[in-house]
């Protein structure tokens, strides 16, 4: 399991190659890249703030929970902070599993939890000014479906 929280940009292809390398017993690798999206308001850049003392342990707990729920060989999470421009890659998740269903489900779970339980906050700077991105109700709803799944027999 690898968790990296960094200001620097990273090369997604190189990260995926390194993640896949040597995984002879894994049949599936799923990767997700989050990209800073321009908005209708004309996004100039985004500022990502985080809680350094808490960020890596919080992500490690989320990744450990994923490993507890599914049969996974490896997990990689990279999340950036600082100033990012539209089109920049803000984060990535990779999961490796013997079978694709586990790899897909775990990546989906990780993304839902990273959105709402990892201590990052986004501020959008547009030509009209700067505004903190508000959390969405759908993000909490997305988490509850995993609770429902756990309770199911």
């Amino acid at each position, binding site marked *: 399991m690898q968790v990296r929280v960094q200001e620097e940009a990273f090369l997604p292809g190189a990260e995926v190659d390194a993640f896949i390398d040597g995984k002879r017993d894994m049949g599936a690798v799923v990767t997700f890249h989050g990209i800073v999206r321009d908005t209708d308001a004309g996004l100039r850049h985004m500022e990502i703030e985080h*809680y350094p*003392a808490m960020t890596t*342990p919080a992500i490690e707990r989320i990744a450990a929970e994923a490993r507890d729920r599914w049969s996974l060989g490896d997990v990689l999470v990279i999340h950036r902070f600082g100033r990012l421009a539209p089109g920049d890659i803000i*984060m990535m998740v990779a999961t490796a599993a013997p079978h694709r269903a586990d790899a897909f489900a775990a990546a989906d779970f990780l993304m839902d939890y990273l*959105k709402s339980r*990892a*201590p990052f*906050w*986004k501020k959008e700077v547009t030509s009209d000014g700067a505004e903190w991105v508000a959390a969405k109700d759908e993000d909490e709803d997305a988490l509850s479906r995993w609770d429902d799944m756990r309770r199911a027999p």
Partner: protein
Amino acid sequence: MDVVYFAWVRERIGLPRETVETEAATVADLVQELIAREERYAAAFADLSALRCAVDQELTDFDARLSGAKEVAFFPPMTGG
């Protein structure tokens, strides 16, 4: 005890971190003490449903007890990913 603030909570209070002398038993008690201090705290803590808190870097509820805690953090709901 260290109290840390993030995102718009930090901006409203005007500080990223401060040391607070307090005997507050719970996070909610600490919030009430801060609100009583100055208007900027009252502005930041006006709606607790719009806030989250962590004690010693663990997400928790506002009724969490503070005995032995070294750091309390206040912030809006997270927006990572």
